[in-house]
């Protein structure tokens, strides 16, 4: 399936003549043997004429949690929305550079954007269940991706709800409206909905921003479980959260990637002075 997803691998002119994407330019000691799931090379991203992201190179490693931190408006969300081509929905935007998912350019002219979005799931800042029942919410992704078999559908819905640690709380009312759930439950429902279509990567865009501390803890526990089987990217404003859940952390500031590395190293011995200042609360 992966092989058929991108029948053409034509490169756009900007990326022609650059070094082969298979070679990673910035491999440091701690990342040498890691499998790369998403490879970002030399990207610039524009909203109209204003540049939101500038010359970013970065690798997202398989089955690891990568956190994006940085002050509001630094481009974290914009950045991860490039990985599932969500920014395509915004008019007058432009991307230069290369983004690969499993060694295939997701912005090539032949890329199947619908398939990319199935493989790269997303959980949004504000829980956004559909105004349908809990069951229908989870089954939706299966239906649009062509699963008609009722038995299989039901099994996968239940399985996803269990994986998202929601099943026990709602198993008696899966045919009730999803909008009656609490905020934290709604967010876990969104995670279940995302898991149902069997993605490889899950992007979390500030998933706990509108949740209380208990719901936040549940989501964080869930993230640690999920990384066994998924590659996770999480945008967060909460630096403790980044420290708790992530293996790698990227610090963005004003659209630039200031520092990227193992979370533990970045938080204890940041290489860049700006990272240190941000972590210690001197600005941001």
């Amino acid at each position, binding site marked *: 399936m992966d092989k058929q997803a991108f029948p053409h691998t034509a490169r756009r002119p900007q990326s022609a003549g650059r070094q082969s994407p298979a070679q990673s330019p910035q491999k440091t000691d701690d990342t040498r043997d890691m499998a790369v799931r998403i490879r970002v090379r030399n990207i610039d991203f524009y909203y109209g004429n204003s540049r939101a992201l500038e010359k970013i190179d970065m690798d997202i490693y398989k089955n690891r949690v990568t956190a994006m931190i940085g002050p509001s408006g630094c481009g974290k969300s914009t950045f991860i929305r490039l990985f599932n081509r969500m920014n395509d*929905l915004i008019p007058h935007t432009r991307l230069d550079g290369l983004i690969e998912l499993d060694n295939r350019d997701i912005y090539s002219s032949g890329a199947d954007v619908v398939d990319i979005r199935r493989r790269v799931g997303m959980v*949004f800042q504000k829980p956004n269940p*559909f105004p349908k029942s809990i069951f229908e919410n989870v089954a939706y992704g299966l239906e*649009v*991706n062509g699963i008609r078999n009722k038995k299989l559908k039901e099994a996968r819905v239940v399985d996803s709800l269990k994986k998202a640690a929601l099943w026990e709380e709602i198993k008696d009312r899966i045919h009730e409206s999803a909008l009656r759930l609490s905020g934290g439950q709604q967010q876990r429902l969104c995670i279940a909905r995302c898991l149902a*279509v069997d993605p490889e990567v899950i992007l979390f865009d500030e998933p706990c921003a509108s949740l209380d501390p208990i719901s936040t803890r549940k989501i964080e526990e869930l993230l640690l479980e999920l990384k066994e089987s998924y590659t996770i990217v999480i945008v967060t404003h909460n630096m403790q959260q980044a420290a708790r859940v992530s293996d790698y952390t990227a610090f963005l500031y004003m659209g630039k990637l200031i520092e990227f590395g193992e979370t533990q190293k970045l938080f204890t011995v940041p290489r860049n002075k700006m990272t240190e200042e941000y972590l210690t609360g001197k600005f941001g």
Partner: protein
Amino acid sequence: MNGTKTVPFPRAGGFPKFHLRNLTQRIGFFFLFLSVMVTVLFLGVLLVFIVARGIQVVNWEFLTQPPREAMTAGGVAPAILGTFYLTLGAILCALPLGVACAIYLVEYTPKSYVVNLIRMSINNLAGVPSVVFGLFGLAIFVKFFNFGVSILSGSLTLAIMVLPSIISASQESLLAVPQSYREASLALGASHWQTIRKVVIPTALPGILTGVILSIGRVAGETAPIIFTAATFYTRMYPSSVFSEVMALPYHIYALMTEGVHADKQAPIAFGCAFILLCLVLCVSAIAIYIRQKQRSKYG
């Protein structure tokens, strides 16, 4: 504190003892209340007047029989049926076309100058006087396409007349669908068309239906567009095909009050027609409210 001398916040003082604002508020509220009362009064009087005078002539014969004795006796069944056909035809044409238009304009076209221009034109079209649509229908459907004065011509004319309001109402409800629903659907790997079909339209449906049903009320009551295109003053015949000309309630009221020689006998019949028309429109609105409430309470 800590030894530094605290400076008291200066008191401005000088406020008047008597506050005019309480009085102006009372006067303001009084006028707002008065506006509501005047509106309710006139609507109430209208309703009572029509019902009181209309209900006297409405009986089984009135609803089921054609007119007799040069419009002075009998019923108005052909007019009720004609209005029903004209309205049905108009909505059948305008609903799919209008909703499709709105979906395309909201979902598929980029927000550009041209689209804004199209939207503005459609909104302005909604304000064109209905008699203009009548003339247009006469020129295009009756003469050019040679449909004659018929249900078909009348329905098409009415359809074109309500198209702008159906498009506007549909656009409004489509735009009111939260963008987060679309994003959620697309992020799961749904195509744009799947997203529209399975998420956007179901969410917007109550709003679209409300708009459509309010348009039905308007279509049923319009006179000017059908004068030249569909309506006839008197026929004993029930329509046999879409090319038949028909009687219609609003035009029948107009005809009863302006033509004929027995004004004293015709006027009560006109009020009977008005009463029936009012009932039809109220029924349709009630259905609209019912559907909307049902949709809303489904997933509250």
